[in-house]
């Protein structure tokens, strides 16, 4: 098991380096001289030149990339804010728990809601409930979360007065943001659970289980759901990435002091190192979530792990193909 996790970790390194390279290139193509922006418009040319030398901006681009990577690893250097002149990482560490809490809470809600609705829909295919639920789910993936947030503020906070419109001072402040952020995730998970379970319950071993006289609930949960869960798990992992992206908008709508709001405020102030540092941090956390999902796979489906032992390359290929099929199926 440890060997498997270790291998997965090693496989992550080139991807992470690639992610860092992408963000590095994006920072490079941003117009404007960082040294001048740091010093302000009134700075003399000499001062800017000195600053450029100090910041190492005059060196070869390859050298700078390696410096960037080394700075990230050793000093957690995610950049320096133009506005506060402080390292971005301090603010990220302060705010990330809030964002993570929101994303985690939302994941819990949407997994519970999505999987249970998906099971009911699949077992009662083409019933009124199924038609209604699939219709609502398609609506759920079509609604932009920032607009849903604004509308729920109007309806539940301003008109009905049931919940506070914005801020984060207690549990009641989390209800609207989590529901808003969770809508599309629940809908996506529901759609995946439904189609995956529908495929599984056509299999022979389900008929066998039924013909043994097994209770229907046991057949569905134990024989059906367990085997249908792997693609659902992939979708949940991917949804977490969407949630991290979506939290940027939802936090801004509900004024939740998380990483997303920090980034949106930075966009308004044209404080780009904060934006890029935040994106890089979230992309790296997303990679770790995916690693976690990969490890969960092997718990759910022992075949994956044992295949891994026998022949790495072959399984890695199969694994990728499996994911590709899923990507094709995924709608969002």
């Amino acid at each position, binding site marked *: 098991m440890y060997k498997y996790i270790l291998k997965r970790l090693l496989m992550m390194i080139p*991807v992470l380096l690639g*992610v860092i390279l992408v963000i590095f290139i994006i920072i490079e193509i*941003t117009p404007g001289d960082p040294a001048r922006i740091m010093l302000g418009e009134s700075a003399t040319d000499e001062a800017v030149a000195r600053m450029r030398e100090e910041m190492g901006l005059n060196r070869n681009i390859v050298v700078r990339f390696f410096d960037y990577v080394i700075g990230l690893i050793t000093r957690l250097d995610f950049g320096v804010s133009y506005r506060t002149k402080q390292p971005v990482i301090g603010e990220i560490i302060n705010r990330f728990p809030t964002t993570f809490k929101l994303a985690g809470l939302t994941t819990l809600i949407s997994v519970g809601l999505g999987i249970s609705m998906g099971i009911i829909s699949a077992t009662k295919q083409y019933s009124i409930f199924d038609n209604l639920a699939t219709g609502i789910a398609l609506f759920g993936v079509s609604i932009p979360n920032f607009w849903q947030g*604004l*509308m729920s503020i109007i309806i539940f906070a*301003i008109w009905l007065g049931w919940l506070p419109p914005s801020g984060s001072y207690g549990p009641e402040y989390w209800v609207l943001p989590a529901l808003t952020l969770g809508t599309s995730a629940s809908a996506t998970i529901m759609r995946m659970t439904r189609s995956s379970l529908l495929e599984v319950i056509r299999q022979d071993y389900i008929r066998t289980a039924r013909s043994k006289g097994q209770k229907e609930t046991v057949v569905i949960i134990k024989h059906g759901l367990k085997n249908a869960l792997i693609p659902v798990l992939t979708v949940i992992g991917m949804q977490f990435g969407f949630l991290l992206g979506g939290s*940027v908008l939802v936090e*801004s709508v509900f004024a939740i002091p998380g990483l997303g709001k920090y980034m949106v405020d930075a966009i308004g102030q044209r404080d780009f190192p904060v934006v*890029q540092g935040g*994106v890089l941090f979230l992309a790296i956390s997303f990679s770790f979530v995916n690693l976690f999902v990969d490890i969960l796979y092997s718990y759910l489906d022992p075949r994956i792990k044992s295949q891994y032992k026998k022949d790495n390359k072959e399984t890695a290929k199969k694994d990728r193909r499996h994911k590709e099929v899923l990507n094709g199926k995924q709608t969002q």
Partner: protein
Amino acid sequence: MANKLNSKKRGPWREVWRRLKKNKMAMFGLTVIIILALVAIFADYVAPYGFDDQNLMLRNQFPSREFPFGTDNLGRCILSRVIYGSRVSLTVGFIAVGIALVVGGSLGAIAAFYGGKTDNIIMRVVDVILAIPGMLLAISLAAALGPGLRNMMIAIGVGSIPGYARIVRSTVMTVKEQEFVEAARSVGASDLRIIISHILPNSLAPVIVQSTLGVAGAILSASALSFLGLGIRPPEPEWGGMLANARQYIRDYWHMTTFPGLMIVITIYSLNLLGDGLRDALDPRLKS
């Protein structure tokens, strides 16, 4: 007998169309999209006012006979702005997907066709881009490139490249093993010719579905970027941008928030209905 001949004449695409026509929801989606496209093209004739016609005497008006969607904080007709806004949204949606489709599709086709090292290099790059959540990549790119229609299309398009690369790659891989490709090669067709005239037409089905859903996603991303101030600059109307403006007046004027958002939902929902319908119509497993 005559019937049999007729049915033989029907091409595979006509068959798909026949199945799609049966799906009422998909046809509803298609109709709405066609109407939206017409409204966007003929916005000058359809919109009751110009998108930037300000009338400070008529600020923040609630919906009325004169202004069906009300007016905004500068006294501009929201209905007219929503109508002009559909131009931006549809343009961004289709062009961003076009960029992603051309670049991603070619990469996927090359990777699958040549295999080996080429495949490995291309797909590792694709994996890296896929490791960054799409919305975040779009925010990051849009922040670097600056606001504007063109930059927004690039920012959204780049993020969707990996999806198309993967889908085209996996379908081309199955198609290229088939006999007609071997036949084309044996009569001396060039690689490019085989890819373009034999493999691509036969791998279109999943790409069409992905593109339809992709346009929906791109429109959603575009409105999100504009909402964050990274998209279209005012006074040019864009649905997301209108929502960003309406936010300040959310306590008193619900209509400013409601209508631009409703337009987004209707557009995305219709595209998703059509995409789902196309998937069912194109899925060979459902062929009876």
